[in-house]
């Protein structure tokens, strides 16, 4: 079973040299720490920055320089600042190669719910709806099971949707899965020490197990 850092580490392996990547809040943010040395990757922050660097050293926080999670950050050489319209313009125009974000639920047809629990929690969708509507390469980073012990990989989402038919891949503490165009979660890898049976029990939607499932290398 992976911890949050493990999920981030595994996702980092999906990143290719030369990619522009948008990292959502939460686990996705951690992915930045595991991008292989020597790989040229530019991180986009949808509040208007290409070239997110590490957090500042204490005392050098700049209130004018934050990421989409409102955290103080630094900029790398070659960064560019732009307004929010251009930021989502480049997202809509599919210039961002990979989008990694969290979710409350993912359905076997690629639908995603992540922004609202009716009557309980309303924080808003932020940029998530724009991202999932436009990105062609979307990986969801999340726990397989929610705090109430229910599967988050469903036949159909129960919460208000963020987008439809958009999630391509899911990485959880238990597994790596592809969401197939024809529907269904195709199991690709098991987390270390996790059995296919455990994954099957934790997956409410249709799980497709084609052959021997290798244990992931993190």
């Amino acid at each position, binding site marked *: 079973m992976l911890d949050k850092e493990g999920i981030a580490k595994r996702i980092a392996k999906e990143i290719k040299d030369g990619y522009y990547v948008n990292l959502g809040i939460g686990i996705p943010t951690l992915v930045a720490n595991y991008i292989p040395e020597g790989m040229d990757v530019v991180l986009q922050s949808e*509040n208007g920055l290409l070239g997110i660097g590490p957090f500042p050293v204490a005392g050098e926080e700049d209130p*004018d*320089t*934050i990421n989409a999670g409102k955290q103080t950050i630094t900029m790398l050489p070659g960064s560019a600042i732009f*307004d*929010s319209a251009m930021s989502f313009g480049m997202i*809509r125009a599919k210039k961002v190669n990979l989008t990694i974000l969290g979710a409350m639920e993912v359905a076997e047809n690629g639908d995603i719910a992540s922004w609202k629990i009716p009557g309980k929690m309303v924080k808003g969708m932020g940029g998530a*709806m*724009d991202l999932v*509507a436009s990105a062609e390469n979307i990986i969801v980073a999340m726990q397989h099971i929610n705090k109430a012990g229910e599967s988050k990989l469903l036949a159909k989402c129960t919460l208000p949707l963020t987008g439809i038919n958009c999630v391509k891949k899911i990485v959880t503490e238990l597994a790596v899965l592809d969401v197939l165009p024809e529907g269904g979660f195709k199991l690709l890898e098991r987390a270390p020490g996790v059995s296919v049976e455990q994954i099957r029990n934790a997956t409410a939607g249709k799980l497709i197990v084609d052959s021997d499932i290798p244990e992931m290398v993190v």
Partner: protein
Amino acid sequence: MNKVVSNADEAIKDIEDGMTLMLGGFGLCGLPEKCIAALVRKNVKGLTCISNNAGVDDFGIGLMLKKRQVKKMISSYVGENAEFERQLLSGELEVELIPQGTLATRCMAAGYGMPAIFTPAGIGTEVAEGKEIRNFNGKDYLMELAFEADFAIVKAWKGDTMGNLVYRSTARNFNPLMAMAGKITIAEVEELVEPGELDPDHIHTPGIYVHRIFKGYDYEKRIEQRTVR
């Protein structure tokens, strides 16, 4: 062409109950904090505020929410604010949540004289309810209308007396878009300079879009999530 007013109170003096305001900033970053303080002092009520976020409990638009000056918020993300959540769940506050890119582009559309734009954001979700859907090249898009606002209030780093503005780092965010979209646009700046002191190649908001400008003193620029290495 001198657009300088003496301070925030003078800049907002004709903002009246029931008006629609755009307020720049992302979280607490690039927030027109002097004008917000003046709006709180003036205690103008029944406002509709278009702003990406709703501030925190004791800073930004949160200060106006606390005094119940806001009738309706149009935002993309409103976490980080307990009083906001209380007013929302109790029905005291009307809230329209829209995707962040849609919000940005609807402001830009107003400033560019485009009555509507098309975006795929929200297709298949409750955001699409009641909106026109149109297919281009096999993909569905929502038609979203340009925003209208009586006043746009933005924060820039530097400005000149003709209203030309330059923003700093990610404090740019929604500010240049809203600056273009107000019927009247108010800019507060950290440094106010004479025409010619800003490089014409590096002006983010041309003065034609800005009606009033003033220098704010002692910016607090509060940090929402202080993170260090």
